[in-house]
C-alpha cells in the first residue's frame, strides 16, 4: 500500500495511447495459498505436470462451452477491439488489447488443438504452454474485468470475458488461483457472504440502521433479518451492510418496501448477492453459491426474490439463476420445482430492486420530493454486467432506461456522460471481475481513466457532482480512485441513495 500510484493525466481528446510494451507485465494479484485453494476444491499448489493438466482442462472446457472454441477459432485479427479496453487505454500495454489478451490462450489452443499448430506452430502463431506464458496468463487474465465492452465492437461478437473466465478456470485447476476471489468464495461457503459478516453482526448492523432512520425521519422503518413468511426476500451485496456509500442504498431499499407496505426480509444464510464463482469461470462454485439463495427462499417461504444494487449479481440472477437453482423457469430438480411452486409468478422472478421501485413510481405509489436532491447534479454510470449481460423490464434497453427513469423521478438535475461511454458502450469502473483488490491498485486507477475523462467533461461543463450507479464494486472502486483524479470520493453513490433522499414516508395527508 505504500507504493505510490499516479493517475494518468485526463486527456481532452481521447486518442489511442502510445504503446508501452510490458508496462503492466509485473501487475499480478496475490496467489491464493494452499489453504484457500483446497477449501474450495482446487489443488493447493502448481503441480509439476501442470502443463499437461492445463491442456486436459482446456480440452474439457472446449467440449463443454462451444462458445469458447468459436471465439478461439473465429478471430481474424481485424483490430476493431484493440482500443476499446479501458485497461489498454489507461496503461498503453499492448497485451491489454482484447485481441492480444485472447491470443495468450489462442496460441496454446492452436498448438494443441489445431492441425496446423501441431505441424507448423510458428506459421500460425501457436506456442507451447511455457512457464513464461503461464506468467503472462496470470498477469493479463487478471487485467480483464470481464466487462465485455470489446465484444460490442467485435464484428464476430467474440467475448473476451468468456476467454478470461476459461483461463482463470484452467489456472485454478492446476493450482494457480487468485487470493482475492478464492478467499472470498471460501468465506461465502463458511459464513454466508463475501465480507464474512456472521448473523449476529448483521443483526446488530441492521438494528443500528433502524435507529438511524428513525432519528432522520421519525418513522419506524424495519430492516428485518430471517423473517419467516415475508413476501419478499431481498438479496443484496454484503458491502451494502458494511461500507459507505453502499449502506445508503440499503437504507433506501428499506424505505421503498416500507412505503409500498410490502413485507420483506434479508437472510443471514443468503446475505450475499455477489457470486464470484462467475469471475473465476467455475460453474460448480457459481451454482453452489447461488444455491444458498434457494435454500434461504425455501426456508423463509417467500413469494418473491428481489436483488439489490450489484452488477454481476444481477447478471447471475437474470441470466443463470433459472437453470442453476430454479428461480425463474428452467431448473428441474425437486427443490427447483418446489421453489417454482412457492414463488408468485405474477411477478418477475427474480426482480431487480430498480424494477421494483420503478413499478411503484409508475403506479404513483411512492411520495417523492425530487427537490430534496437539488444539491446534487446527477449522472448515471452504467455498470458493465447490468448493461451488457442482462435486462430490466419487458422492453429492449430496460436496463438502461429504468435506472435513469428512477433518477429523473427522484432528482431534478440529471446529465448524461458522452454517448460513447454509456449504455451498451459503457466503460467498466476499472475494478470489476475480481480485480477490486489493493495490490492491483495501479491497474484500477489507470483502468478508470476513460470513465474519469467522461465524468470530468460534464463536471466542468454542467457542474455534475454525483455519479449514481447500481453496483457495489463500482461504488467501492470509484470511492477509491476518484481522489486520484482530483474528485471527492463522496461523488459516487447508489440510485437508491437518491431514492432514499427523495422519498417521503409517513401518512399520505
Amino acid at each position, binding site marked *: 500500500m505504500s507504493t505510490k500510484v499516479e493517475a494518468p493525466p485526463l486527456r481532452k481528446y481521447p486518442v489511442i495511447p502510445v504503446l508501452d510494451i510490458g508496462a503492466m507485465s509485473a501487475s499480478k494479484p496475490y496467489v491464493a495459498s494452499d489453504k484457500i485453494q483446497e477449501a474450495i476444491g482446487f489443488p493447493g499448489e502448481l503441480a509439476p505436470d501442470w502443463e499437461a493438466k492445463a491442456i486436459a482442462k482446456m480440452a474439457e472446457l472446449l467440449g463443454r462451452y462451444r462458445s469458447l472454441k468459436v471465439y478461439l477459432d473465429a478471430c481474424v485479427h481485424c483490430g476493431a477491439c484493440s482500443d476499446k479496453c479501458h485497461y489498454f487505454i489507461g496503461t498503453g500495454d499492448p497485451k491489454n488489447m482484447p485481441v492480444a489478451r485472447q491470443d495468450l490462450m489462442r496460441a496454446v489452443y492452436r498448438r494443441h488443438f489445431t492441425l496446423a499448430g501441431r505441424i507448423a506452430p510458428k506459421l500460425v502463431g501457436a506456442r507451447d504452454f511455457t512457464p513464461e506464458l503461464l506468467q503472462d496468463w496470470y498477469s493479463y487474465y487478471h487485467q480483464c474485468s470481464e466487462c465485455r465492452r470489446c465484444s460490442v465492437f467485435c464484428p464476430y461478437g467474440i467475448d473476451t470475458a468468456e476467454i478470461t473466465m476459461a483461463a482463470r478456470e484452467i489456472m485454478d485447476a492446476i493450482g494457480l488461483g487468485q*487470493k482475492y476471489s478464492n478467499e472470498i468464495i471460501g468465506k461465502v461457503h463458511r459464513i454466508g457472504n463475501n465480507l*464474512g*459478516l456472521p448473523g449476529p453482526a448483521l443483526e446488530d448492523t441492521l438494528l*443500528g440502521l433502524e435507529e438511524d432512520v428513525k432519528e432522520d425521519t421519525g418513522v419506524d422503518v424495519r430492516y428485518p433479518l430471517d423473517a419467516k413468511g415475508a413476501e419478499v426476500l431481498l438479496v443484496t451485496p454484503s458491502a451494502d451492510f*458494511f*461500507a*459507505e456509500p453502499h449502506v445508503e442504498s440499503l437504507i433506501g431499499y428499506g424505505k421503498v418496501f416500507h412505503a409500498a407496505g410490502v413485507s420483506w426480509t434479508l437472510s443471514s444464510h443468503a446475505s450475499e448477492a455477489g457470486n464470484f464463482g462467475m469471475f473465476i469461470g467455475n460453474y460448480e462454485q457459481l451454482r453452489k453459491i447461488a444455491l444458498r439463495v434457494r435454500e434461504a427462499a425455501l426456508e423463509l417461504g417467500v413469494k418473491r426474490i428481489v436483488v439489490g444494487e*450489484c452488477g454481476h449479481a444481477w447478471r447471475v440472477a437474470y441470466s443463470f439463476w433459472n437453470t442453476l437453482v430454479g428461480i425463474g423457469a428452467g431448473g428441474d430438480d425437486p427443490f427447483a420445482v418446489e421453489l417454482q411452486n412457492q414463488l408468485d409468478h405474477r411477478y418477475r422472478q427474480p426482480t431487480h430492486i430498480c424494477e421494483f421501485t420503478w413499478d411503484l413510481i409508475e403506479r404513483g405509489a411512492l411520495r417523492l420530493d425530487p427537490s430534496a436532491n437539488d444539491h446534487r447534479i446527477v449522472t448515471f454510470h452504467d455498470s458493465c454486467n447490468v448493461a451488457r449481460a442482462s435486462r430490466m423490464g419487458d422492453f429492449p434497453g430496460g436496463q438502461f432506461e429504468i435506472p435513469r427513469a428512477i433518477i429523473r423521478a427522484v432528482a431534478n438535475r440529471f446529465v448524461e456522460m458522452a454517448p460513447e461511454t454509456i449504455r451498451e458502450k459503457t466503460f467498466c469502473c476499472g475494478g470489476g471481475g475480481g480485480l477490486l483488490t489493493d*495490490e492491483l491498485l495501479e491497474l484500477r486507477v489507470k483502468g478508470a481513466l476513460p470513465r474519469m475523462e467522461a465524468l470530468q467533461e460534464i463536471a466542468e461543463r454542467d457542474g455534475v457532482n454525483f455519479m449514481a450507479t447500481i453496483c457495489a464494486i463500482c461504488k467501492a472502486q470509484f470511492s477509491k480512485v476518484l481522489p486520484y483524479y482530483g474528485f471527492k470520493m463522496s461523488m459516487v453513490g447508489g440510485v437508491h441513495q437518491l431514492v432514499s433522499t427523495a422519498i417521503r414516508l409517513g401518512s399520505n395527508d
Partner: protein
Amino acid sequence: MGTIEVNGKSYETDEEGYLVDLADWSEEVANHIAAVENVDMSDQHWEVVNFLREYYDEYQIAPAVRVLTKAIGKKLGPDKGNSQYLYELFPYGPAKQACKIAGLPKPTGCV
C-alpha cells in the same frame, strides 16, 4: 507472506502486512504497523483501534463503517462521528488501515 520484527520478536503477516495470528497483537505491534503505514497514533486513533478490537471480540468481524462512526461519535463527540473524520485519521480507509493496526483480518469483498 511476510514477517515484522518488534522488540526482537518476529510475527507472521500476510502479503499486505496484516497479522496472521490475532493473538500476536499488542500495543507495541500496533505502533509498529502504524509506523509502517505512516499513521501517527494519537488518543483518537487508539479510540478507534480499541473499539474495533472490542467489536471484533464480540462479533468476529470488524464493525460496519456506520456502526464505527456512530460509536466514535458517541465517544469523541458528534462532529467526529462521520467517515470523513475517520479518513483523516486513517487515510487509506478506516476499514482496512485501522483493521490492520488493530491486528484484525482485512475486510474482503466489494469494499
